C-alpha cells in the first residue's frame, strides 16, 4: 500500500458510517482541507454508505472504503458487493418536498466529482473533493 492510501472495511451496522466519516476527517485534516469542506466530504460519504447499508442487499454485509490522497485532491471510493441498481431511473428529477431520494443529489451537490458504477455485482461510488474548488 502506498502511504497516501487508507482502507476501511465496515460492517453494515448502525452508526458505523461515522467510523468512516471520522477517518475522512483525519485524512482531510492531514491534507489541510478547511473545516467546511471536511463537513461536505463527511455528509456526502454518509449518503454513499447508508445507500449501501439500505439498498445493496450485499451478502457480505460489508462496505469497502478507500481514501486516496492525490496532491490537492481527496478521492473516496465507497464499494459494496450487492445487487446494484439502475442509475437512470434512480436519478429522477426531485419532486417538490420529496421525502426520500436525495442521497445521490447530495453527493453530487457536496463533492466536486461523483462517478457511480452500478452493476448486478455491486456498486462503486467514486467521489472527489479538491482542496480549492473552482466554484468558490
Amino acid at each position, binding site marked *: 500500500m502506498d502511504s497516501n492510501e487508507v482502507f476501511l472495511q465496515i460492517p453494515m451496522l448502525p452508526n458505523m458510517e461515522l467510523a468512516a466519516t471520522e477517518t475522512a476527517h483525519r485524512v482531510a485534516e492531514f491534507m489541510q482541507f478547511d473545516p467546511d469542506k471536511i463537513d461536505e466530504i*463527511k455528509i456526502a460519504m*454518509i449518503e454513499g454508505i447508508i445507500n449501501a447499508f439500505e439498498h445493496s442487499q450485499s451478502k457480505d454485509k460489508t462496505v469497502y472504503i478507500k481514501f486516496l490522497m492525490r496532491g490537492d485532491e481527496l478521492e473516496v471510493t465507497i464499494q459494496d458487493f450487492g445487487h446494484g441498481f439502475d442509475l437512470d431511473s434512480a436519478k429522477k428529477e426531485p419532486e417538490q418536498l420529496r421525502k426520500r431520494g436525495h442521497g445521490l443529489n447530495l453527493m453530487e451537490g*457536496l463533492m466536486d466529482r461523483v462517478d457511480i458504477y452500478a452493476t448486478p455485482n455491486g456498486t462503486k461510488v467514486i467521489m472527489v473533493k479538491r482542496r480549492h474548488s473552482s466554484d468558490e
Partner: protein
Amino acid sequence: MADVFKVTTRMEGKYAILYTEGYINNLAGDKIVEEFNQLVAKDVKHYVLNLQKTQLVNSIGISILIEVIEKVQEIGGTLAFCHLTPIIAKTFKIMGLTQYSKVYDTEEDALKN
C-alpha cells in the same frame, strides 16, 4: 461529536424551541417526531429547531424532518430552523427544505420573525 443524540425543548411564549445535539440520522429523526408529537398534543403550533449542537445529518433523518414540516403546515403552524452550520444549510438547500421553512442565523432572529 456528541455520541448519543438528544433533543430537549424550551418554551418561550407561543414558541417551542427544540435543541438537537448530535448526528441526525433515522433514530434521531424518530426522537424529534416523538418530542414534536407531545408538543402538538399540548396544542403548540409554533416551532424553532435550534441545530447548534448538530454537525452531521443524513438524508433519512432530514426526510423525517420534512414530515414534521408537513404536519406543522397541516395544523396551520410555523417551523423555523436556526444555527445551521454552513454545510447543513447547504444540505437543506439541496434537499429543498429551505423552500418550505425559514432558516435564521440565531434563535433571536427566529423568534422575532
